[in-house]
């Protein structure tokens, strides 16, 4: 077989992304059609910048989903090595023997130094990123909100102590913190496991208080709801935490009840990302709360005897959502870069993981000779973060308009 020309490569890549194009087309067509009734999301489609951002973000989300769930798009196994394809340029054809085994006949974006398909690794890497980054940002938000709201609402000593702690964490060099957290000696002491146990309890606390404060006036709904929701989330929590902490006191669940196991490296990455992001979010939420708590509707809630947590979660939080949504988008972007950075330093995720940071690091060594292996994931990372930033910009712009 002959190698593909550049035109052929582009055509083939676009064709491989066909399911993504279809999904994007449907998303945009439906959203634009119903945009007038979709609130802020609908308004996004009035802004060119917002639409471009949304397009880039959704492109990678769909790519990740289709690869992970239906095994579409990627052409080869991201971990399979074909020695003949080492460092081959984009569009290079596979040996006849391999093609006869039913493999895709070309490495669309070339092969890396171990003979793996750069295109497939980039596509698979998107799944790692969109799995971890938004979830990590979400967890960081839970922690930041659960601490930031009372700090802003009550003020006083409580606020001063928490703000001081947040400053302390922020003042510590992030990369050094990561190095410490993933050092085997420290992992063995169980510190990251304990941290996970503490940090992951916040979402449960958050959801619990959220529902309880809302339905406290209607016990007939509240009690069953809380039992079910808290039961399930506690089970998930225990499953998440137990594996990491085998043999420590955090090992709560017997293994037959343990739902899933997260690879150790991923959990550590998760913990570190949440840990370093939450102080910033804490400060944002605290500042917004300080502003909104002086509004009359907060006083109105106080005068009818609402509990402080109801006021914080149902009167204040929904009304600061604008800046928080924008920051959330930006923060997913930071987290993506952070994951890249971690991967680049070889921290956290297993070495063969196709995530973009690790891939860029792998390609770095032969950068002057073979440019293409790190270039594809670098561009992918760039476009996703750019998309998130544009999306945040668009949201901010549209939320300010009336």
């Amino acid at each position, binding site marked *: 077989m002959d190698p593909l020309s550049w035109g052929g490569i582009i055509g083939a890549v676009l064709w491989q992304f066909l399911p993504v194009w279809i999904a994007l087309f449907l998303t945009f067509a439906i959203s634009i059609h119903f945009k007038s009734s979709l609130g802020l999301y609908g308004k996004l489609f009035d802004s060119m910048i917002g639409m471009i951002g949304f397009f880039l973000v959704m492109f990678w989300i769909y790519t990740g989903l289709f690869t992970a769930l239906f095994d579409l798009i990627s052409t080869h196994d991201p971990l399979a090595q074909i020695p003949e394809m080492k460092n081959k340029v984009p569009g290079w054809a596979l040996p006849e023997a391999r093609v006869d085994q039913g493999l895709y006949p070309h490495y669309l974006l070339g092969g890396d130094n171990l003979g793996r398909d750069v295109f497939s690794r980039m596509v698979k890497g998107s799944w790692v990123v969109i799995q971890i980054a938004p979830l990590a940002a979400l967890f960081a938000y839970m922690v930041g909100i659960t601490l930031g709201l009372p700090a802003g609402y009550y003020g006083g000593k409580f606020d001063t102590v928490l703000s001081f702690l947040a400053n302390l964490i922020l003042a510590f060099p992030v990369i050094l913190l990561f190095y410490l957290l993933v050092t085997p000696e420290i992992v063995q002491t169980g510190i990251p496991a304990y941290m996970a146990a503490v940090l992951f309890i916040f979402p449960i606390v958050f959801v619990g208080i959220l529902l309880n404060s809302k339905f406290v006036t*209607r016990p007939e709904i509240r009690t069953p709801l809380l039992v079910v929701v808290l039961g399930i989330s506690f089970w998930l929590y225990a499953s998440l935490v137990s594996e990491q902490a085998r043999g420590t006191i955090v090992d709560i669940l017997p293994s037959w009840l343990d739902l899933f196991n997260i690879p150790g490296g991923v959990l550590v990455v998760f913990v570190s990302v949440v840990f370093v992001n939450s102080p910033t979010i804490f400060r944002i939420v605290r500042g917004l709360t300080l502003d909104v708590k002086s509004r009359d509707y907060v006083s109105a809630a106080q005068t009818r*005897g609402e509990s402080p947590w109801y006021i914080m979660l149902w009167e204040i939080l929904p009304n600061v959502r604008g800046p928080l949504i924008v920051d959330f988008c930006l923060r997913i972007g930071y987290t993506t870069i952070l994951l890249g950075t971690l991967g680049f330093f070889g921290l956290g995720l297993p070495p063969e993981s196709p995530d973009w940071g690790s891939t860029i690091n792998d390609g770095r060594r032969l950068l002057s000779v073979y440019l293409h292996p790190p270039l594809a994931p670098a561009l992918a990372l760039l476009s996703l973060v750019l998309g998130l930033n544009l999306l945040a910009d668009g949201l901010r712009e549209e939320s300010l308009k009336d």
Partner: protein
Amino acid sequence: MAKKDVQPILEIDDLNISFFVRAGEIPAVMDFSMKVYPGETMGLVGESGCGKSTVALGIMRDMGNRGKIVGGSIKFKGRDMGDMSDEELRDIRGSKIAMIYQEPMASLNPSMKIGKQLMEVPMLHEDVTKEEAYNRAIEMVASVKLPDPARVMDAYPHQISGGQQQRIVIAMALLSNPDLLLLDEPTTALDVTVEAGIVELVKELGEKTGTSMVFISHNLGLILETCDKITVMYSGEAVETGTCHAVFDRMRHPYTQGLFNSIPLPGADKNSRPLLSIPGQLPLPHQRPLGCNFGPRCPHFDEQKCNAAPVKMNPVQGEEKHLSRCNRISEIDWNAEPERPVVADPVEPGDVVLKVDGLKKYYDVAANALFGGAETRTVKANESVSFTAREAETVAIVGESGCGKSTLAKVLLGLETKTEGEVVLENLEIGDVEVNDRETGTVASIQMVFQNPFDTLNPSQSVGSQIMRTLEMFKIGNSQEERRQRMLELLDLVKLPRAFAERMPRQLSGGQKQRIGVARAFAGQPKVVVADEPVSALDVSVQAAVTELLMEIQREAKTTMLFISHDLSIVRYIADRVVVMYLGHIVEQGTTDEIFSPPYHPYTEALLSAVPIADTSVEKKHIVLEGDIPSALNPPSGCPFQTRCPRKAQVTGDLCEREVPPMRNLGNGHMVKCHLSEDILEQMEPVIVLGSKNKAPSGKKTGAASVATATAMSVASSAAKKPAQKSATTAKKKTATKKDNAPPKMKKPSKPDDLKRISGVGPKLEGVLNGLGIYKFEQISKWKKAEREWVDGYLKFKGRIDRDNWVAQAKKLMKEG
């Protein structure tokens, strides 16, 4: 004023301004014409969204990238501003035309010293040296009556009070000797007594420098006090224009009339003569009708005459320069008494519901939160506050910002706990029980209506769910279904359609939001409702509707209402009893009649004088307080009011500075906290006197809500009688002795003329003239040269009496009656 030969400073001709937004073109100002002559003050009045600020921005040619002048012309001193280059416009702005905005803090640069900001003006526009600029600036600071100019020049804007900031803004605007001054709601953000000071300053400076002014305000009373001419705007158009007196006394547009019917003028009565709101709502810019914009809300609407074509400004017959955008000027009976709802009987107050006795609330302010500073200071927000409120009674709590009225409300509602004293709600001590520790019944029985309608509802929950939540909290109804039913009934109660339950707060207008606030407060059948300035942020025509609604519900439910306000007009209208607060103290309390008639506490007297009243027949004593309200952190010794009290000299010795005066009972529970002696209190004259015309039987019948129209009528009917009376009085006067050319005096007649109608005479000057024994136009019209010169010298006018030709003006006014 006929000044045909004089060129107007500003001439606006058929101005049209549109904003171009996502939804398309939105016309903000249509077909607007106005002329401002030298030395004249033009008032622009209208409700929010009527386009009055857009006109000002149009004059400045500063409408952002969305706004555009789409038609008409603005001529400044005869030159069309549309033909000027950007550079010329920049040169004019700030030097020839200056603008003063509502928020003083927003117009000053917070990071620059005041002196430097002021010096920039002459340095930029006139290229003078630094020393020259400094001298001019400090002179100007002194002329806006700021104490210690050198210190002020060296301060940052945040170091001085709001009133002082606004004075600095005015100084800055006047530094370049502008020919035209635009004032966009310059006093709205200030307290009433501070406002009175600023208004006086603006008027004085206007008289001194001869600057023409355009004064934008929503407050008709303020316009009457400051302006010569008035233009009323509605929905982007001027609807009526003329001299203040012509428009106030003989209004010829239904909207103007509606506005006057909806403000509580002295004489309005909540039982026998309720306020009338204008029905309906301001049309959205793209939903304006073809013909008269006011048509859908107008009681005189005639499809054929009013909605056939756009209505033009029509002259009012027999009056020069009085125009009205109404096609039926000659057909409508302008003096007809509008239909009012059925007169209600006054409600008899029942047992005492709320008793506050010796309440004190102190706050400790620590210097450092984390390490706890060594020094804590105490803010005395409430100092021995005692009063009672009975069932179905309305007690007004009056005072300016910082007087402690909001703290009092917080203690009542349990958001704060008392420091000392007792607060008893129906035999239950609630002063030290926080709201979260109160029983549901107690919480529901004392509720609050908040001030800012745009803040009172949670923007992210539907209206219905917010009322439902309140019902849930008060444990009303056994199921969601019952509560939903009750919520819909509450919407009926506040006269909103039931469909509003599904709406989000942003889809509601200010008045509608405030109605929801009322529904929420009355959800748990409260015993006491604290209303914290519930209407002050609303438009005039909506205020009346919300006030009436509040009172109607209160009357039905026999609720006690604590009405917190700084606006004495509305207090006089709504309250049964009044409590006046100053700096945490109650300085006076009594029934509404007792408070509004002498003897007064000096602070009440000043407050009454400061409130602008939109009625030409009302005469007010002119009292302007010096300085600002002291900080509660550092209150003055002795009487809290002693630093600003105009009557302090009447108390012997330094008693005021040493001792807090005792609460004195002047009978019937009329309490005054003052050192003034009995006979001084007794000699006090009323601050507000309804005009003589009003005392005529016809005036009483037509009532004060429509005083202005009634006035017009009685003027016409009594015109024939007047000259006879006058000649009788003048006969006596001629015999009066002449001393060093001073004009002849007379005793205060029962019907003094309104000398303010003479152009150039304001309330202050009028007071001075009255002091000279001059009350009638006739007196002035007879002044000889020697007398004119004497008065001119006495007033240090440097020939202004001749320049303005008072004698000719007085003759003319005398003929008009």
